[in-house]
């Protein structure tokens, strides 16, 4: 089917029951509810006008008040009693809706949980054919106290104080933030907030917030604060500044899949040589230290020396 007929037929099958009891609804409102342009709805109505009972003579056609549509931009549709309900949800539609709601459930505040759970239960029972368990999304749970405080601050528009770990620098930082939204990315909850320490919008991984306090201060509105576009993924959203080259032997090859690398090249000795940009050499040093020699820094040379020196220094504590 051409893409437009594939979209148009299901939409028309929903449009007819939708318009029951909505006599005189503005076409703009219909378009908004259907997520298409008003022109598209007008086209749909023009097709419906030619549809009706089999062997149709004029009186059996669906009746659309074309004059009201053209002059006032409002919709009256009649003579279609045989289409009182929309088409059943397809398994794929039900499943995409259920999976989306499950992700929502995993970050919702306690107060919203009952609505989400009961809506899910109703949709799952409407799905009925056992498709519901076929897709699962695991979202890591944050500390409930941190989660609740974040939800509360967002709901009431209060500033928060965070004790936040920065593992790449092994620091525990203290900062006041104005929360903007709670989101998930790559299976983890994040708080996006205006950070007064950084003077900019920052993403905070909830499981790295050690303590969260809702302050008795209203958060500043930040209507023009840039929101991070995460559609390209989290690591891609971080602009690296230091160019590094690593050689990965077999046990450390996962690094090339896990992080965004700019280039990868097989070496004659079986290693994979990757180039990547990192924001922070501390992060890279820690990553290489934990690979036990399976990942080696080629560039920057100073970092390669530093990592080896670090390991030797650490070994002295073990008498080696």
């Amino acid at each position, binding site marked *: 089917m051409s893409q437009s007929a594939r979209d148009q037929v*299901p939409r028309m099958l929903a449009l007819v029951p939708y318009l029951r009891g909505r006599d005189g609804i503005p076409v703009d409102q219909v378009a908004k509810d259907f997520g298409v342009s008003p022109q598209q709805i007008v086209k749909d109505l023009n097709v419906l006008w030619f549809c009706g009972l089999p062997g149709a003579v004029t009186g059996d056609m669906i009746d659309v008040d074309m004059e009201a549509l053209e002059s006032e931009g409002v919709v009256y549709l009649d003579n279609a009693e045989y289409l009182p309900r929309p088409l*059943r949800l397809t398994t794929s539609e039900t499943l995409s809706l259920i999976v989306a709601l499950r992700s929502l459930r995993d970050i919702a505040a306690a107060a919203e949980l009952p609505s989400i759970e009961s809506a899910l239960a109703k949709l799952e029972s409407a799905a009925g054919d056992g498709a519901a368990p076929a897709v699962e999304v695991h979202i890591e749970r944050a500390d409930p106290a941190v989660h609740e405080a974040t939800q509360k601050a967002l709901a009431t528009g209060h500033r928060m104080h965070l004790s936040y770990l920065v593992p790449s620098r092994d620091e525990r930082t203290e900062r006041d933030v104005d929360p903007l939204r709670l989101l998930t990315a790559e299976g983890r909850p994040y708080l996006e907030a205006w950070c007064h320490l950084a003077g900019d919008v920052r993403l905070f991984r909830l499981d790295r917030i050690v303590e969260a306090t809702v302050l008795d201060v209203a958060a500043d509105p930040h209507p023009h604060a840039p929101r991070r576009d995460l559609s390209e993924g989290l690591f891609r959203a971080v602009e690296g500044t230091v160019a590094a080259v690593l050689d990965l032997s077999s046990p450390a*090859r996962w690094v090339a899949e896990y992080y965004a690398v700019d280039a990868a090249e097989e070496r004659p000795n079986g290693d994979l040589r990757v180039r990547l940009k990192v924001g922070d050499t501390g992060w890279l040093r820690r990553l290489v230290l934990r690979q036990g020699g399976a990942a080696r820094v080629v560039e920057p040379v100073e970092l390669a020396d530093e990592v080896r020196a670090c390991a030797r220094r650490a070994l002295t504590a073990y008498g080696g």
Partner: protein
Amino acid sequence: MTRRKSERLMNLVIALLVSQQYLTKDRIRQVVEGYHDQSDEAFERMFERDKEELREIGVHIEVGSFEKAFEDEPGYRIRRDTFELPEISLEADEAAVVGLAARVWQHARLAGQTSSALVKLKAAGVPVEPDALPALEPQLAADEPSFEPLWDAVISRTPVTFEYARTGQPTQLRHLEPWGILSWHGRWYVVGHDRDRGATRMFRLSRIVGDVAPDGRPGEYDVPEGLDLRAEAEWLAPTSPDASATLRIRQGSGWGLRRRSTATDPVDAGWDRVEVPYGGRWQMAEEIASYADDVVVERPDDLRGAVVAILRGVAEDVA
């Protein structure tokens, strides 16, 4: 073209839906505008294609015998109970959260599926509100090219075959009865019965190379009763703690370890003695090694040994 096709399909749906009995092909050809001016052959082709296309959008056409005397000639109809959305009564608060689902999928086709589901609910009178709780934005991405074919295969229970790459090994052709897919830390996995191994296996979608091809008919196998994907994914989770380490941690560092500590005592200038429970020894050792000389293992000995081995591997590397 689109217009005429949409019109024909609508009229076909209405004719098959309102009919009290099975309609023969001849009758359908007579009553549905757009069929009568076709040649026999063109009509046959068109009708077959139309049925298939309606099936794709979720309209199930039942085939049966319309009268005893015409046993050889099949008739067609759409049963109202399989066509119509059943009654779903959502309370206002439930409808509000359902509306939020529209923003979750970052995958074009599934975002479209969610929207069309919501349109149907609106058409059924459910007051779906997209603007509730605007500060809550879970996001689900699915960038793996194998995601879409596997999503469809899971829904239709169609066996599949694909090339699978494991680290450091050549790709292998695998044959799978997919039961379900799951997202873990933003990565998608498919779980199912591996026909080559004769056992349950899990595959990471990002390691599937090339196409996912059908390897049998839809509905060819059953998914085990009570399949629990979360349980299947258990091995992806970190091992739960079954041991405790005594560590010396420099003050002002080792924050990731301190977070999980059960006891902390200052020992000498600048150092704390910290108890940290852990599960997998090597995983813990790697984490400790990443802190270099800011963290030292006091006990147990096997963890000490693991950390020393990792640090030696790094120190002895001469590029």
